[in-house]
C-alpha cells in the first residue's frame, strides 16, 4: 500500500487525525446504508422470482389461446380483430426514495374493457385469450416495478460497497499509517531532545 508522505509536525498530525475521524464516521454511515440496502434487496428477490414465473406461465397460456384462435378463425380475421382499441393511459407512475435510491412506484393498471371487434366472426377462445392477457398485464406491471427496483438497488449496493471497501482498506489504513509515522518521528525527536538536554546538564554539572 502506498505510504503517505507527510511533514512530521503536530499541525499535520492534528489534520490527519481529523481526516481519519471523518473517514471512520463516513465508513460507519456507509456500512449502515449498505446493510439496509441489502435488507431491502433480499426482501424483494424471492417474491420477484415467484412473480416472474407466474407471469411467464400466464403469458404462455395466453399465447397458446391466441394461436388456437388463429387456427380456428384464420390469422387475418384475428389480426383484424386485434386492431381494435387504441393506446391509453393505464396506470400512474410515481417515484419514491429507498435509502437515497429513487425507485418507481406503479399504481394498479386499469385495463379497459375489451371491445370493438365482431363476436360473430371471431372464436370465443379469443375473448378468453384477451381476458387472460388483461389479467397478466396487471402482474406484468407489478413485475416491471419490482425488477426495476431490484436493478436500481443492485447498482446502488455495488457502488456503496466500493466506497465502503475504499474507506476500509485504503483511506483509513493510509491515514492511520501517516498518523503512526508522524507520532514515531515526533517521539523520536522528543527523545533526542531529552538526551541532548541531559547531556548538557551533565556537562554543566561537571564544570
Amino acid at each position, binding site marked *: 500500500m502506498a505510504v503517505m508522505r507527510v511533514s512530521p509536525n503536530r499541525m499535520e498530525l492534528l489534520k490527519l487525525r481529523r481526516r481519519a475521524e471523518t473517514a471512520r464516521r463516513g465508513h460507519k454511515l456507509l456500512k449502515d446504508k449498505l446493510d439496509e440496502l*441489502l435488507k431491502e*434487496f433480499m426482501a424483494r*428477490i*424471492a417474491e*420477484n*422470482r415467484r412473480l*416472474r414465473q407466474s407471469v*411467464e406461465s400466464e*403469458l*404462455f397460456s*395466453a*399465447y397458446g389461446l*391466441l*394461436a388456437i384462435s388463429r387456427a380456428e378463425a384464420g390469422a387475418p380475421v*384475428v*389480426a383484424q380483430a*386485434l386492431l*381494435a*382499441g*387504441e*393506446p*391509453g*393511459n*393505464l*396506470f*400512474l*407512475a410515481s*417515484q419514491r426514495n429507498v435509502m437515497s435510491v*429513487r*425507485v*418507481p412506484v*406503479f399504481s394498479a*393498471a386499469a*385495463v*379497459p374493457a*375489451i*371491445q*370493438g*371487434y365482431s363476436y360473430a366472426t371471431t372464436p370465443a377462445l379469443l375473448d378468453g*385469450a*384477451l381476458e387472460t*392477457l*388483461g389479467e397478466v*398485464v396487471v402482474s*406484468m*406491471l407489478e*413485475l*416491471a*416495478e419490482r*425488477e*426495476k427496483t*431490484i*436493478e*436500481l*438497488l*443492485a*447498482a446502488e*449496493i*455495488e457502488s456503496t*460497497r466500493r466506497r465502503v471497501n475504499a474507506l476500509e482498506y485504503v483511506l483509513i489504513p493510509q491515514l492511520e499509517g501517516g498518523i503512526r509515522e508522524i507520532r514515531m518521528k515526533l517521539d523520536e525527536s522528543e527523545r533526542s531532545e531529552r538526551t541532548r538536554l541531559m547531556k548538557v546538564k551533565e556537562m554543566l554539572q561537571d564544570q
Partner: protein
Amino acid sequence: MSRIAIIGDAVSVAGFRPLGIAVFPVGTPEDARAVWPGVLTDGYEAIFVTEPVYAVLAAAIAEVADRPLPAVTVIPGAGSAGGIGGAKLERAIERALGTKMPVRDEE
C-alpha cells in the same frame, strides 16, 4: 397518467393492443433498433420487450438502466423459451451480492 409500450414480433404483441397498450410490432428483432429511439422519446413509463428483441437491444436498454423510469422489462415472446428475464435478474443479484444466490424452493 402513464402509458405502456411493448416491442416484439407481431404474433406476440398483437394481443396487447385491445388492452390499451401501445404495440410496436417488428418484422425481425434487428428492426427494433429503429423503433427503440422513438419509443424512448415518446416517454412511455413501462416498456416491455420480448426476449429476441432484448437480445438485440440489450446495450441500448442498459443506457437507461440507471434511471428510475422507464422500467424496461423482458417478457417471453410467443416462440421463445423464456428464462432471459430471470437470467437478467440473476445478473443484478450477482452484481449486488458479488456471488450467485441459489434458488430455494419454499413451496
